[in-house]
Structure formats: structure tokens, C-alpha cells
């Protein structure tokens, strides 16, 4: 360990105070703190210092994302190969998928971190770790065949307009990863929806069917998959959104480590279930008749577990989290059913509630203050 420390100190020397490369110090410091806990301590006031800093939090989220990512990579290959052969060996599918997914992750991290480093140097602050998660989330919620330059453009838009314009990590109003997806969705609709994009190479292979379940239902057809496939995730869709099973494994990691809020996750699914139940009673079209199975398809599970729980853009108060999560689930199904042109209701629902999260918090805090005031007034009266 001593050796590593010396080595890093040696690299950092020309970047120190007053040296000629001082301006680029944030770049090396980011590398340093990636390996070691930062050495400085709080100087003013009383603060609680915890071993779990922002970096450890973010790494936990990345760990929680890995199961869904690996499954998504395998599924991307599987969906493509199953169209042309009877059985698909596990490794074949994984390798086929990796050829598609790894370049996307590389582009997302390369472009995004480049912008983060640029802003860190211009503004003279340290590079924040938030992008480690965002950069992984962005490719995971895109269709497999999205051209890389579109991905890069979405990343640029999300990082600059969604985050840096508001002041960087921790200041953003909207979830940056969903900002990227919303940008791609509205800018390049033909690459983000339809029946040709969910299975890799679908447009070049003949006689292939790659419609998502929600797309089929909106067109008035049968879902065409059994419940277990929907739960396990062997269905077409954005890279990592399909497998509810592995997303729940990620959710367990988030909840056990205390990184993600279980209140948002539970209330999110609850809201979706209530809405799905109401629609199944109404039952006017196949999307409504789909009932509780709504919880298993589309990006709902992924959105609620990994996007809605983003601590920056979510509600902060406990009661607020219940309201926030419930409304996300509620609106997701509502948008899905009433506007089949936007099958990804969950994306729009989370962005909408991101905007309203501070309002929700405000009223929760106000309500609490009023309740306590009344209690004091009552005590004064009886005393």
C-alpha cells in the first residue's frame, strides 16, 4: 500500500499548489480519491463525518446495477440470436450482447466524464462521483441499437443542461439519466420507439418480430409472453429494464445498505398497483385488461428502483417520499394506458415528480409545523 501511496504522490507533484499544472489538479485528485479516502477534514462548524462518503454511496449503486446490467447484456444477445437459431448457448448470447453494450458504456463514460472534468477545471472544484452512476444508467435505459453518436449527444445534453447548468452534482432538479433518455426520445423518436429497435439487428434481419409487450398491447394484440418470462426478463425492451428479478436483487442491495429509500420503492409499486387495479376494473382495451402484469413489464421496475430513488431529485421528507413514490407509480400507468404513443410512462412520471418533489417537501414540512403549533396551543390552553 505504501508503494501505491508513494507512486500517486509522485504523479501528483506537478499538480500541487503553485506548480505549473495546478489548474488540472481536480483530474488527478479524482484518481487519488478513487483509491484512497480524501485526507482533508472539515474545518468549520459541527459536522457528522461518516466513512460512507459520496464515492462509497455511488459505488454501492453501481454494484446494485450490475446484476441487471449483466442480465441485460445477455438478454440483448439472446433476443437477437433466438430469432435465427433454435437454442442459444449462454456465452454466445453474452458475447453477442457485450459487443453492443460495452461500446455504449464506453461512449457514455468517455463523453460524460470529459464534460465533468472540463467543468471541474473551469470552475476550480473537484470532480464529483455522481457521474459514475449516471454514466452507467444512461446506456442501460436505451434501446440496444441506438447509434452511438445519438447516445453521446444525449449524454452531452443531460450533463450540461440537466446538471451543470444548475451547478453540478447535487444541484440538479431532474434526474440526469432520465434527462438523457427524454432527450433521445423526443429528438429521435424513430430510434426510441416502434417495433424495429428493441432487438439488435432487427431492421437488417428479415422476418423478425421485436415489439415490446406494451407496444403490442397498444396495437391491440396479445402480449405473447408468459408471466415468468416477464418476471425473469427474457423479453424485448431497453437494455436493462426487462428483468424484474435482477432489478429486485439490486433493490435489495440498495435497501440493505440504506442507499436507496425503501419508502419510495414500496410506494412506487403500490401506486402502480392501485392504478393497474382501477384500470383492470374499467377494462376498455387490452392495455387496461393487462391489470397487475403492468408491474412486470416496461421500465416501471427499473425506474422506480434506480431512478426514482435518486437522493438528489427525490423528495427528502419521509412522508414526502411516500407521496412522491405513490404518484410516480400512479402516473406511470396512467400515461401508459391513456397515451399509447408514450409507452414509457415511467420516464415522464419520474421527471414530472422530480419537478414537484420540492413542493411536496414544502407542504409536508408546513403541515408538520402547523400540527406542532396546534399541539403547543392546546397544551397552553389546558395548562
Amino acid at each position: 500500500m505504501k508503494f501505491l501511496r508513494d507512486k500517486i504522490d509522485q504523479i501528483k507533484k506537478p499538480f500541487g499548489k503553485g506548480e505549473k499544472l495546478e489548474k488540472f489538479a481536480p483530474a488527478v485528485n479524482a484518481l487519488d480519491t478513487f483509491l484512497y479516502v480524501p485526507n482533508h477534514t472539515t474545518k468549520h462548524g459541527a459536522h457528522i463525518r461518516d466513512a460512507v462518503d459520496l464515492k462509497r454511496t455511488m459505488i454501492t449503486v453501481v454494484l446494485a446495477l450490475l446484476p441487471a446490467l449483466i442480465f441485460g447484456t445477455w438478454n440483448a444477445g439472446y433476443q437477437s440470436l433466438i430469432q435465427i437459431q433454435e437454442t442459444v448457448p449462454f456465452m454466445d448470447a453474452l458475447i453477442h450482447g457485450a459487443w453492443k453494450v460495452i461500446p455504449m458504456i464506453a461512449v457514455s463514460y468517455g463523453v460524460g466524464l470529459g464534460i465533468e472534468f472540463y467543468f471541474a477545471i473551469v470552475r476550480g472544484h473537484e470532480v464529483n462521483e455522481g457521474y459514475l452512476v449516471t454514466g452507467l444508467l444512461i446506456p442501460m435505459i436505451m434501446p440496444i441499437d441506438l447509434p452511438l453518436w445519438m447516445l453521446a449527444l444525449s449524454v452531452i445534453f443531460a450533463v450540461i443542461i440537466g446538471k451543470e447548468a444548475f451547478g453540478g452534482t447535487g444541484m440538479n432538479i431532474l434526474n440526469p439519466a432520465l434527462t438523457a433518455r427524454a432527450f433521445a426520445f423526443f429528438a429521435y423518436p424513430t430510434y426510441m420507439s416502434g417495433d424495429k429497435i428493441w432487438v439488435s439487428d432487427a431492421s437488417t434481419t428479415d422476418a423478425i418480430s421485436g415489439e415490446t409487450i406494451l407496444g403490442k398491447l397498444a396495437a391491440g394484440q396479445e402480449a405473447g409472453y408468459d408471466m415468468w418470462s416477464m418476471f425473469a426478463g427474457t423479453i424485448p425492451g431497453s437494455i436493462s429494464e426487462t428483468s424484474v428479478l435482477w432489478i429486485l436483487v439490486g433493490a435489495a442491495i440498495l435497501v440493505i445498505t440504506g442507499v436507496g429509500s425503501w419508502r419510495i420503492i414500496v410506494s412506487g409499486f403500490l401506486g402502480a398497483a392501485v392504478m393497474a387495479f382501477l384500470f383492470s376494473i374499467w377494462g376498455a382495451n387490452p392495455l387496461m385488461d393487462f391489470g397487475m402484469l403492468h408491474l412486470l413489464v416496461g421500465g416501471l421496475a427499473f425506474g422506480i428502483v434506480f431512478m426514482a430513488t435518486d437522493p438528489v431529485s427525490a423528495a427528502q421528507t419521509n412522508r414526502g417520499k411516500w407521496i412522491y413514490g405513490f404518484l410516480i407509480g400512479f402516473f406511470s400507468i396512467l400515461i401508459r394506458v391513456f397515451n399509447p404513443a408514450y409507452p414509457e410512462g415511467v420516464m415522464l412520471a419520474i421527471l414530472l415528480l422530480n419537478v414537484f418533489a420540492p413542493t411536496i417537501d414544502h407542504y409536508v414540512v408546513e403541515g408538520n409545523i402547523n400540527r406542532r403549533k396546534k399541539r403547543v396551543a392546546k397544551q397552553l390552553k389546558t395548562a
Partner: protein
Amino acid sequence: MAEEKESLFSKRNRGLLSDPLNDNNPITVQVLGICSALAITVQLKPAIVMSIAVMFVMAFSNMIISVLRNSIPNRIRIIVQLVIVASLVIIVDQVLKAYAYDVSKELSVFVGLIITNCIVMGRLEAFALGNGVWRSFLDGIGNAFGYAWILIAVAFFRELLGSGKLFGFQIVPQSFYEMGYENNGLMLLSPMALIVVGIIIWIQRSKNRKLIEKH
């Protein structure tokens, strides 16, 4: 009127023309006239026609109000201003209908809405009511230019990136599309106009430090 004699384009008068372009821009600094910046900046041509129309209305309404400023009763000044602005807008509308019918149809209701353009009323209230005729005229022209360049800049990016054209002519070559380039559909939706204006404000403030408010 105790206005001292000064040349037509003295430094003070030139300031009336140049200030609104940057330091006191009606859109990016005063944040007025946003609605039309959203609505008619999908293409360059309507944006330019709109700019010219606004320039005409602003210059002459400023001038007329300035002429009348000492005889308008203070309590009904808004009504008088509205009548004058409305008459000028009707003239613009009729001219457009007669000589540029296509553009007039594209701009549709937004020509009529110049009446409610906050920049016009704002300058009448803030400037024309208290300044001489020539200075009010210059102020109208200057603010209209400030409005115009933002409108045209936004329209330039929205038309180029949104439909690959400028003034309706194809600019992005066909070979780009064959290589996989796509027009950005978001540029055609109005939120993008706000975002482009936002980016212009961001760049302007980072260049022009005196615009940044002190806390």
C-alpha cells in the same frame, strides 16, 4: 423642453441603440417577449419577418407616444398606448397579408399578438413617456434589434438542427443522412426554444460579468 442641443448620433444616443443588444437585452436580460420567441422560431424566415414587424411597431409607437406624451392624461395612458400599438399592428398585418401571404399564414395569430408583446408596452411606459421624439425612436429601434438578434439566433439553430435547412433550403447534405445522421426532432418542439435562449443567457453572462447579480 429644456433639452440641450446634441448631435443626432451623440454617444448617449448611440448607447440607446447598442445597449439593448447586450447589456440590456429585452429577451435575455429583461426576459420579456418570451412567448413569441417560443412560437415563431422554428424557421428563420418567419423569425426575420416577425423581427421586422416588431421593429416597425416599436419604432413608430415609441415615436408617436413621445410626441403625445405631454398631452396624454396619466390615468388613461395605457388605453392610449394600446390604441396606437393596435393600429400599427393592424397596418403590419394588412401589409403582410397583401404582400407576403405565405409568411402571414405561418405567423398566424402571432402578428396580432405583437400588441401584447411585453417589450412594446415596456418601452412605451419606461422610455417614450419621458423622452424626446428622436431618442424614443432610437430606443425603439435598438430594443427591436436586441429582440431580433436573439430571435434570429434561436431560429438559426432550430431550423438548422431541427430540419437541416436554412430559409427552407437544404443545408445538411444528403450524404450525411446516408451516413446515419438524423434531424433532431426536439428542436422543432417549443421547449427547445427556451433551452436555446437559456444557453444564450448562460454564455452572455459568463462573458459579461456585470450582468451577474450580487448577493
